[in-house]
């Protein structure tokens, strides 16, 4: 039985439609990440699930029970807010036990759960402090603790890491992932950070303008983006989206890409595909390699490519990024750090077409 089912959910503020026909279903133990650019309606959707915003249409079921008109406290959820929303005048301990107190849980159980959760989150020494006396990371833990003592059917997280500095964010990310595994909790997690989405999720929902663009596992989203928006949004650096022309020849697909100051680059996809004449070729930077003549990388269908003019070289420690111009668009290749590549010189690049995506230039939808 799905732990959360959202059916044809609509949400508008007056005449403004914020969410359009949202359908999501997740199973127990799933870690669902809602990701999308700022203002796309992620928080609104989360608040609808929590019951903090009334919905305009559709139904929401949690644990099989229709909770559409049910108040937040009766939905069996716990929520961590972006600002942490700790009660400023209460001690950390009171912050964590407030919910239980309101619900009339007996003191002994409160104390036991508080001890359990504060040990788990390593905040035992902070229990008597006020939120104002905590660091950002500590506040974040307390906010988590407040959710954890609930032991709810569903956890809701609204960008819980966005107020932390980069380093702390990475370590808290790992902790959240560990917590998810230890508790086998069901989680809906909002972020606009696609790396957070990729590392945490068992399932990702990509949203734009209140419309779901794609739902799938991180691998599906990464390898088979449903449209150019998802392709561009997920991955860093972003997927290269190169306008190209297609010819069918001898049961193979020939792809012609305009090159600055040179004849068009022609690469061959050995698979016969039914593609329109104009397409947009989507290739991840790591699927563009240095062409080494006979280079057939293990597991790839074929390398195909040619010489291109390199414009910028960006060494990034483990990798070196080389930027060129193809089909009128900047194209980034992720090369091994020791690659001998120089700006304003020609360099042989090869495309691994086994993971290539083809998009329609008209509507941006995936073609293969």
């Amino acid at each position, binding site marked *: 039985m799905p732990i959360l089912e959202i059916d044809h959910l609509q949400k508008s503020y007056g005449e403004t439609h914020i969410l359009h026909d949202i359908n999501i279903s997740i199973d127990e133990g799933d870690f669902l990440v809602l990701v999308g650019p700022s203002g796309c309606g992620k928080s609104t959707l989360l608040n609808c699930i929590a019951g903090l915003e009334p919905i305009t249409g559709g139904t929401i079921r949690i644990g099989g029970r229709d909770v559409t008109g049910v108040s937040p406290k009766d939905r069996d959820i716990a929520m961590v807010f972006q600002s942490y929303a700790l009660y400023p005048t209460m001690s950390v301990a009171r912050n964590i036990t407030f919910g239980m107190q*309101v619900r009339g849980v007996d003191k002994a159980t409160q104390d036991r759960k508080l001890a359990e959760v504060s040990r788990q989150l390593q905040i035992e020494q902070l229990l008597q402090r006020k939120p104002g006396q905590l660091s950002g990371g500590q506040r974040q833990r307390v906010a988590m603790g*407040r959710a954890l003592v609930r032991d709810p059917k569903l956890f809701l997280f609204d960008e819980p890491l966005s107020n932390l500095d980069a380093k702390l964010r990475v370590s808290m990310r790992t902790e959240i992932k560990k917590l998810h595994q230890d508790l086998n909790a069901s989680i809906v997690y909002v972020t606009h950070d696609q790396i957070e989405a990729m590392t945490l999720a068992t399932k990702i929902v990509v949203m734009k303008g209140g419309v779901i663009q794609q739902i799938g596992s991180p691998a599906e989203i990464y390898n088979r983006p449903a449209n150019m928006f998802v392709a561009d949004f997920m991955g860093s650096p972003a997927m290269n989206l190169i306008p190209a022309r297609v010819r069918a020849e001898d049961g193979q697909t020939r792809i012609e890409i305009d090159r600055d100051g040179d004849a068009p680059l022609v690469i061959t996809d050995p698979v016969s595909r039914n593609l329109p004449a104009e397409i947009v070729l989507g290739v991840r930077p790591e699927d563009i390699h240095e062409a080494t003549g006979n280079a057939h990388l293990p597991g790839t269908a074929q390398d195909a490519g040619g010489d291109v003019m390199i414009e910028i070289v960006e060494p990034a420690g483990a990798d070196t990024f080389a930027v060129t111009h193809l089909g009128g668009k900047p194209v980034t290749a992720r090369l091994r750090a020791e690659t001998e590549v120089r700006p304003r010189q020609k360099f042989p690049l090869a495309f691994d077409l086994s993971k290539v995506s083809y998009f329609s230039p008209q509507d941006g939808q995936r073609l293969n």
Partner: protein
Amino acid sequence: MTSNTTLLRWGLYGILILFALFYLLPLFVMLTTSLKSLEEIRTGSLLALPRAITFQPWLEAWSTACAGTQCEGLRPFFWNSVLMAVPAVMISTVVGALNGYVFAQWRFPGANLFFAAILFGCFIPFQVVLMPMARMLGLMGLAGTIPGLIFVHVIYGIGFTTLFFRNYYVTIPQELVRAAKVDGAGFFRIFWSIFLPISLPIITVSVIWQFTQIWNDFLFGVSFSGPGSQPVTVALNNIVNSTTGVKAYNVDMAAAIIAALPTLLVYVVAGKYFIRGLTAGSVKG
């Protein structure tokens, strides 16, 4: 350069001291006059210190001076004022806090219109409401009573107290209320456990403001009180005006100081919080 700024600084202090003296002069005259005998007032200078200090005028003002035909001093009226001001301040502050909480955190359809109407209430001149209010009090059977005065002051104060509390609570992030809702707390629980504990500065502002307004009010007091319910301001007026024969300036001055003492006291005790409450608002953390 530095000598220039020190010069400026001393100039500034000089001006400030001058202004302070100017403001303190009436108080000085009142205080010294109230401690002089009538004889000394007649013969001495207005600004001179009393040659022989006497507390007789204070005793008279407090317990024997005649206000109209009643010669019991300010005492009974002082208690009338206390009985009127304390409940009125408390009620208007509590109602204002609840109103402000609703306007700031529980937006409802038409909330803006309601708030505008309440704000408008702050700007209605006292004189405009005199007649309708008299009629209302008559209909409610509260005419000429202390509860009637409390009612008037509560109604008139709610606009201000609502404004104070709304502006204070509006700076508190909505997520706090949302978190509490998810925790299971309801309307009053959230108010009690989360909003009230952070409200001390604004409660102080509201109490000082309301107390000063209500204690010092004369117009409502003179319009809506009966013989047994006149507040101290009305009595003070009567004492000053009803002296027959020689004008007892010393008694008048003592009475005026007594009537003003409670508001002075409130400022001295809570003035620090008053300033803090007016400038503060956001709750960090």
